[in-house]
């Protein structure tokens, strides 16, 4: 049959469209076959990173000789990961926040690592218990812990000396005394805050869990299935932390002043004596040591009301998605990256590089307890008495850290309590009403997700 007129043109356009579609399909198939080829490891969320990442990645790459490693730059992005899963090409290995592991595990997106651990003979005892528990869901391990962050209180000695406040007054075990000290340390005049006495950091994601735990409250059950955000002790903790902010000019004034700090610069709040004390992640020692090594600081552990040291831990982990086409290589990579010898190698190289550059070196903080102890012992050279004391307290705090158990709705759980704290600080709700609402939201999300 010979086509003429418009039918001929329609046929030509249809044929061209089919050709384009076929070409697109072929290109797509080729791209897919490249990533699915045996001997390729596609990693998401890690990138080349800093020297510590690069040095360990070099060791892991060597251990996987013959395997092509695709390790594009960029942190883990849920949107990107979901898109990869939706397209049927999940990465072979992901590097992400430990808090997220439980949620993905509950949704069946990650595979349990029990076989990986067994076949590669990974010594799980070397990892910090809290870190490993954080990536354990329904009794199965879904992640290999990497970095490990804890919170301690950094005190500005110049500020407390000027205000005639003793270090013992900043003990979080004694709430009335801490309140008095906060009042003495803060500088508020004419409604403007010019110095924060003690920042409870209640608005940070770690703040409320830390204060609640210090007051004897547990925010979620160990199985991650029952939220307990509105217990009497949790409400009490929030009330107290918010009262500290109210003492210092109120939330608007307090936060506006805090937002004006040069947090990562040489003119930071300790260098400028703009803060008395506040709990902060241990990475901040490295920031202070490099930007303002002259600051006179003292580090205190965060204590429970009965005087026991606590700290909330957080960090990153390696996980293998379901559908990983090279789970074996992924497992090897995770094992090597977190091995004691790899951490030691990276730490030694960093210490040497910093020494050569006459720069300050603070020890790495990893999820591997054995590595941490060796790094501290073998690579750390004293900086000055202020930082040395801080580094020591951090090492101790690591022994007493707690974690938020993996939950099928970790993100909703965290959003529920962070939003609740925000509503209280903004004066929209009382602590009790806010936490009641948060409890309802968190439990409803968990029920839907489990």
């Amino acid at each position, binding site marked *: 049959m010979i086509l003429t007129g418009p039918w001929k043109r329609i046929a030509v356009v249809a044929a061209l469209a089919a050709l384009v579609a076929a070409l697109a399909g072929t290109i797509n198939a080729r791209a897919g076959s490249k990533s699915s080829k045996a001997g390729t490891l596609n990693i998401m969320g890690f990138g080349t990173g800093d020297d510590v990442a690069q040095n360990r990645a070099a060791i892991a790459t060597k251990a996987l000789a013959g395997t092509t490693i695709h390790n594009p730059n960029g942190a883990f992005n849920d949107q990107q990961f979901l898109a990869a899963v939706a397209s049927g090409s999940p990465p072979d290995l992901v590097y992400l926040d430990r808090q997220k592991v439980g949620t993905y595990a509950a*949704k069946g997106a990650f595979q349990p690592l029990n076989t990986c651990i067994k076949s590669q003979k990974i010594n799980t005892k070397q990892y910090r218990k809290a870190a490993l528990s954080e990536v354990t869901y329904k009794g199965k391990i879904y992640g290999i812990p990497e970095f490990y962050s804890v919170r301690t209180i950094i005190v500005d000695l110049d500020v407390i000396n000027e205000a005639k406040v003793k270090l013992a007054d900043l003990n979080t075990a004694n709430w009335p005394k801490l309140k008095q000290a906060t009042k003495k340390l803060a500088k508020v005049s004419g409604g403007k805050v010019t110095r924060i006495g003690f920042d409870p950091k209640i608005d940070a994601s770690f703040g409320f869990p830390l204060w609640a735990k210090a007051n004897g409250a547990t925010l979620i059950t160990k199985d991650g299935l029952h939220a307990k955000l509105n217990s009497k002790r949790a409400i009490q903790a929030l009330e107290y932390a918010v009262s500290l902010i109210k003492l210092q000019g109120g*939330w608007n004034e307090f936060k506006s002043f805090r*937002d*004006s700090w040069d947090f990562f610069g040489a003119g930071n709040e300790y260098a400028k004596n703009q803060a008395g004390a506040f709990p902060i992640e241990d990475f901040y020692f490295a920031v202070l040591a490099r930007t303002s090594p002259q600051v006179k600081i003292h580090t205190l552990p965060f204590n429970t009301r009965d005087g026991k040291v606590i700290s909330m831990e957080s960090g990153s982990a390696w996980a293998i998605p379901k559908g990983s086409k090279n789970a074996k290589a992924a497992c090897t990579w995770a094992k090597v990256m977190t091995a004691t010898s790899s951490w030691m190698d990276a730490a030694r190289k960093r210490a040497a590089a910093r020494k050569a550059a006459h720069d300050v070196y603070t020890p790495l903080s990893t999820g591997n307890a054995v590595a941490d102890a060796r790094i501290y012992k073998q690579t750390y050279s004293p900086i000055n008495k202020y930082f040395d004391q801080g580094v020591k307290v951090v090492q101790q705090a690591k022994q007493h850290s707690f974690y938020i158990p993996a939950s099928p709705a970790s993100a909703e759980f965290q959003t529920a309590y962070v939003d609740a704290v*925000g509503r209280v600080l903004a004066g929209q709700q009382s602590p009790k009403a806010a936490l009641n609402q948060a409890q309802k939201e968190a439990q409803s999300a968990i029920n839907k997700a489990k």
Partner: protein
Amino acid sequence: LATATTTTRPYAPSPLVRARRWFGAFRRRETWVAYAFLSPWLFGFIVLTSGPMIASLVLSFTDYSIISPTHNVGLQNYRDLYNDPKVANALRNVAFYTALHVPGVMLVSLGLAMLLARVGRKLGGIFRTIFYLPVMTPKVAVGVLFLFLFNGTTGLINRALALIHISGPYWTTDPHWIKPGLVIMSLWAVGTNVIIYLAALQSVPKHLYEAAAMDGAGSFRRFWDVTVPMISPALFFTFIVLTINALQTFDEVYTAFYNEGVAGGSSGGPDAARFPVIYLFQQAFGFFHLGYASAIAWMLFGVIAAVTVVQILVSRRFIYYEGNKR
């Protein structure tokens, strides 16, 4: 401006006739050429816009999360929307923001365009560039800039207000001042509208002003009775576009208030800055509720469509198109 004449109802062909004409046009080579030129846009529209839109409509009736099995949930997502106080809060926030943002941008843009229309060509070019430059600033940067400029303690805005003995509010922390602050910040990028208004102002025939002046009209009268009607199509166009954009506000607000690390380590955003697209994003990519997020997207689409239809219906009475018999 227009003379009334006797009008007869124009002939309106039936849909069947129109369809025949449409198909018949394909006998002509020009139609194929026209479609060939249109094809990149048509391809983009069908594959990248209408396809995902239809998919999201279907997903809005499911509990789709990509990583878990999907179930049909009927109208449950829409029922949840109705009962979700955060959705109501987000809609209230965006309505407030839009009500201030749209007239604010239009007034400032028109004022600047009128000033530009008075300056010479050389200077006009320089100022056009200056006014347009902020449009090129990434919205993420604008979000961060907002926190610096509007800081209640050290921000430039409050420092400027202090010079005239006004104690500025806490724009970034006080729930009552967050949205007004965002509106003021949005006036930073009025360049596009300034250019549109300037073009419209320059196309107003001079003789209309001369005639009005001869009739004794003052400057306000000339502006109100000559300028405004003559540039009303441009005003209407920007009114619609600004409203649609305002209802979809996301980047700068998300960066300023919902991005952990930017606002001093806080990980939560204030209720006052929760806009529908921010809540949609949280639900989709924070909590993996893509079905629910799709329902939010369609609710927002419905709101935008309804607002636009009302705007078109109401505006018909006020828009003057040259050549129209009105």
